[in-house]
């Protein structure tokens, strides 16, 4: 059951390919020693190389090369031992060189794969076409002056990895899962911070539609999509637009379109009319980039355990289902937090608490897992108190809320507030006897077949014991006494 869009002439299928630009987390630029920090004063992080002054020569940053290799290895991709930098020629106000130094027919990284974790726990394998290194452009500000655009070159020359997928995605959900997974892998590797809001990860989307079984039709490229939510909207809008054109007897033209988030539409970018005529040629200022086997092997030996391997291990060692494991490994901090809680305890119970109440509290308080309202050690101690029957699930929730409020250890809260659950059968029997004695009519009704009243009795007993009676014991004894 694939994703289809219904048109007047039948069902249409979506074909999506993504080009993700990921900014390398380097201190200095790809070809110059200027800094790369976000939000600096305009044109303060610009060298004469970045400003394309005559006679300046680019020298490559070795760290950026290593990060591209590292990312390629993380994507299980082929690393090309010889790659070549090329000039991609176009004119734009924020591109002082008149060309972008990029890689064309010999990129540093070739084909790889990425595995998507879908919401229903299933997986999809998407091909990676290539990864290459290139320079970012500067930034144009259009809202500073009525007649002028302002240009800040701080971003010009910053290292980007352009990661190109194969046209393997068939729904907006898959495209979103792709970006989510790619961001997770980049963060695990530490090669890009994946911050879409600050623009350190940006997405161009290639969209086309077709009838089932057809070859690919003409695609449009959508630029300027800076969140996963907008990506969804842009794809849905663009697919509908193309279907309408075909169904009215028209043809889709290959072009670059801009996503306008305020209007929720895509529109043609006329400035990019000749955009596909970049007249690439090898950059005469740069020799081919040659890598040795030793260099590649030494980077490989420092790769962390990546999300897919971690997920597999969590499913194997902790018996988690695919969905839970996928959620927990999405970032390293969550995975580490879970493992600290689960160590030596019931992993399923630990997973439920981490993903349920704990993630809930993070969301509610707007906190990051790096600054948790409840430490992993304390959450672990809470799980212990549930496991040894000191707390019922219901009391545990109460204790958890107090832990969030006070930051105290669960053991201390239980002692202070006297929240220990009652597992003394004598005491529970006494409470039950009282409840039954106080409600003789309900007891009679229950015994004459009104089973639903059982819940009423449980509620009354819990109320009488201030919620501290062990629910399992209450159920058991009640059944016996009523039966």
């Amino acid at each position: 059951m694939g994703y289809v869009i219904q048109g007047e002439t039948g069902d249409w299928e979506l074909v999506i390919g993504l080009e993700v630009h990921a900014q390398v987390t380097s201190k200095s630029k790809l070809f110059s020693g200027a800094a790369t920090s976000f939000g600096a004063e305009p044109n303060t992080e610009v060298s004469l190389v970045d400003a394309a002054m005559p006679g300046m020569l680019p020298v490559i940053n070795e760290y950026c090369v290593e990060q591209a290799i590292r990312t390629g290895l993380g994507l299980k991709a082929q690393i090309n031992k010889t790659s070549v930098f090329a000039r991609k020629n176009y004119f734009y106000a924020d591109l002082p060189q008149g060309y972008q130094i990029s890689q064309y027919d010999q990129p540093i990284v070739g084909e790889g794969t990425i595995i998507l974790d879908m919401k229903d726990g299933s997986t999809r394998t998407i091909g990676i076409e290539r990864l290459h290194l290139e320079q970012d452009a500067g930034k144009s500000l259009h809202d500073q002056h009525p007649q002028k655009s302002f240009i800040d070159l701080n971003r010009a020359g910053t290292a980007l990895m352009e990661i190109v997928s194969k046209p393997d995605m068939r729904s907006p959900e898959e495209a979103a899962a792709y970006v989510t997974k790619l961001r997770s892998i980049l963060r695990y590797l530490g090669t890009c911070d994946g911050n879409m809001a600050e623009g350190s990860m940006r997405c161009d989307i290639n969209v086309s539609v077709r009838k089932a079984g057809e070859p690919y039709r003409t695609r449009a490229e959508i630029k300027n999509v800076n969140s996963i939510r907008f990506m969804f909207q842009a794809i849905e809008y663009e697919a509908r637009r193309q279907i309408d054109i075909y169904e009215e007897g028209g043809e889709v033209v290959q072009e670059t379109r801009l996503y306008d988030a305020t209007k929720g539409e895509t529109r043609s970018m006329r400035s990019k009319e000749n955009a596909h005529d970049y007249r690439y040629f090898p950059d005469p200022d740069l020799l081919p980039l040659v890598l040795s086997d030793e260099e590649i092997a030494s980077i490989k030996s420092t790769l962390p355990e990546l999300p897919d391997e971690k997920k597999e291990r969590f499913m194997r060692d902790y018996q988690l289902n695919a969905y839970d494991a996928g959620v927990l490994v999405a970032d390293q901090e969550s995975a580490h937090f879970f493992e600290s809680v689960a160590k030596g305890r019931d992993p399923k119970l630990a997973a439920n608490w981490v993903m349920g109440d704990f993630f809930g509290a993070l969301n509610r308080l707007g906190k990051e897992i790096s600054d948790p309202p409840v430490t992993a050690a304390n959450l672990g101690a809470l799980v212990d108190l549930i496991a040894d029957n000191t707390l019922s699930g219901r009391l545990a929730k109460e204790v958890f809320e107090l832990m969030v409020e006070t930051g105290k250890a669960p053991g201390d809260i239980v002692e202070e507030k006297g929240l220990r659950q009652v597992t003394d059968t004598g005491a529970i029997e006494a409470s039950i006897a009282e409840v039954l004695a106080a409600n003789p009519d309900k007891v009679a009704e229950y015994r004459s077949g009104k089973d639903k009243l059982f819940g009423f009795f449980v509620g009354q007993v819990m109320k009488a014991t201030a919620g501290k009676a062990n629910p399992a014991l209450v159920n058991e004894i009640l059944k016996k006494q009523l039966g």
Partner: protein
Amino acid sequence: MSLDKDTVKKLATLARLDLPEAELTHLAGELSNIMQFVEQLGEVNTDGVAPMTSVAHMTLPRRKDEVTDGGYPERVLANAPDAMDGFYTVPKVVE
């Protein structure tokens, strides 16, 4: 290979050169001559030789990831005709 007038016109547009119509034919001839001169290289037998982008037997030198440059907006903007508030300015380019 020879270039026709339309190709020269397109190249001029891509290079942002404002060429008068009258010059196009003349330039097409000149550019074609240059290309024909370079095309003589096609006579050399290159069977079994991998395409190369450089004749120097060197690989790309690399530098360390250190901040060693920048921090001089006044130098960067020194030749800008109409700098404002630390920015270059250009006629508004909005999509």
